[in-house]
């Protein structure tokens, strides 16, 4: 894995034309995620119908890895049950930090294009931020940070 192969077609495409980018008219849950190390921030809004994510949107200021990760995340969780989204959050985090065995069963599908980030410890948080923020929104935490000590999503860099 080298740094360039992370910038694959699919990631560049989602960066250029992010899906579900913007805000929602009707949202039941909302969170803002910050990466204080680089100043990036991401707003995520979603609308839960019962236990199902009926709609989701994001916007913010971030690098290509973060924006593409957010874009692909929204397409992956839209219409899914909250519990399925939580499974994806857990698996994505494990993939990005290098603790997930991609040869075993998982639900990430095309999201595995981000697997290479595990070899770039300084970029792990860029990829994780949207998932981190989604987790916060689903749990009704309105602001979160990649550096929050008490956050269950806090990923120690270098454990890859």
């Amino acid at each position, binding site marked *: 894995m*080298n*740094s*360039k192969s*992370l*910038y694959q077609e699919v990631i*560049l495409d989602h*960066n250029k034309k992010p899906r579900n980018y913007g805000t929602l008219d009707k949202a039941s849950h909302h969170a803002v995620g910050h990466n204080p*190390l*680089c*100043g*990036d921030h991401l707003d995520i809004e979603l609308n839960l119908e019962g236990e199902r994510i009926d709609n989701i949107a994001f916007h913010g*200021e*971030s*690098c*290509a*890895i973060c924006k593409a990760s957010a874009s692909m995340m929204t397409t992956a969780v839209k219409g899914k049950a909250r519990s399925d989204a939580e499974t994806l959050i857990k698996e994505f985090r494990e993939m990005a930090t290098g603790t997930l065995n991609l040869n075993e069963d998982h639900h990430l599908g095309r999201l595995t294009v981000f697997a290479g980030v595990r070899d*770039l410890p300084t*970029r792990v948080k*860029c990829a994780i931020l949207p998932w981190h923020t989604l987790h916060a929104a689903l749990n009704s935490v309105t602001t979160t940070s990649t550096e929050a000590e008490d956050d269950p999503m806090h990923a120690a860099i270098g454990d890859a």
Partner: protein
Amino acid sequence: MKLIDSALKPEFTSMFDVEHIRADFPILKLQVEGKPLVYLDNAASSQMPQQVIDRLVRYQTSEHANINRGVHYLSETATAEYEGSRRKLQHFINAREDREVIFTSGTTDSINLVMHGYGRKYIRAGDEIILTTLEHHSNIVPWQMLAEEKGAKIRVVPISDAGELLVDEYKKLFNARTKFVSVMHVSNALGTVNPVKEMIAFAHSRGVPVLVDGAQGAPHMAVDVQDLDCDFYAFSGHKLCGPTGIGVLYGKAELLERMQPFKGGGDMILSVTFEKTTYNSIPHKFEAGTPPIAAAIGLGAAVDYLSAIGLDTISAYELKLLNYATEQISNLPGVRIIGTAARKTAVISFVMEGVHPHDIGTLLNHEGVAVRTGHHCVQPVMLRLKVPATTRASFAFYNTMAEVDTFISGIRTVQKVFT
């Protein structure tokens, strides 16, 4: 002979052979992602020449013991070398006396020493401290802590869009409550060289002492603390081709003597009883505990190395690198340089339309090029210039024109990936 010399091209008269210099730096032979390393993150930390590495090895293999203690051979040797290094640093910045040179762990530690030693003793409620928009967080946060503790106020010198201090505005900030000025010599994020001599003279005309954060000044230009007439000058070893964990605080003896100690412990005392402790004289009053002896001696070797090349020669060569890189980067569409001061060191901060600095940094790394991306510990500068983050290339005297070309072609590659 002089006539003939002056007729020679500058390249010959400068007698600066960069390939010869590069041979002294083993790390520059490294390959990164299969490409030769192009190290352009010198403002964060510089690399170490073999001469300094050898000095550290020699100390550790044949001279090490604790200093100022034993009567045995090794302790005497280590003490002599440590104090010898202090004198080298004294001459490096042209301090009057060696006791005006205090070894610290780095610039941050030096600034904190002044905040605790001078600030906490002399700054009172309602007093004002002048800083500038350009300051590194390490020259903001200690003063904020002091201001909070004492009920003092921070005043901030604004900058122009080019990243230059507005000196007239600086002068207007002074009033009867102004008690201290702390200003950086050179901006780490933009490369701006501040008119510190003029600023110091003005502050002194109002009876206000000045600390100069020289972290980015000392490595790139000859520093003469007597000529500047600064009251304090702080800098780090690891940006000067020396080791990490060592730095210097220069202070005028008269001020250092009046200050209270920062850290308490061994070496900084003359006598201790539970009733009363008598502090040692300067510089020892500020060097509690066993100092980083090896690092201090290594820093002495580093300034020997730089002095042998000559800081004026280094400045002149780095200016050529800056001019060439500025010209090359200006030709790239969609790239904007942040920080265009008339007087700069070889630092280029830039933003690229539609591409986040982190992506630029990662892709340049793929070309073997090391740059810094982010806010560079100067969030107020980023806020003022309305950029969330920048990519920064910072050059040293061991960088080459060919490396500038590699850097530029790397930026072109990034642009291709994102179109």
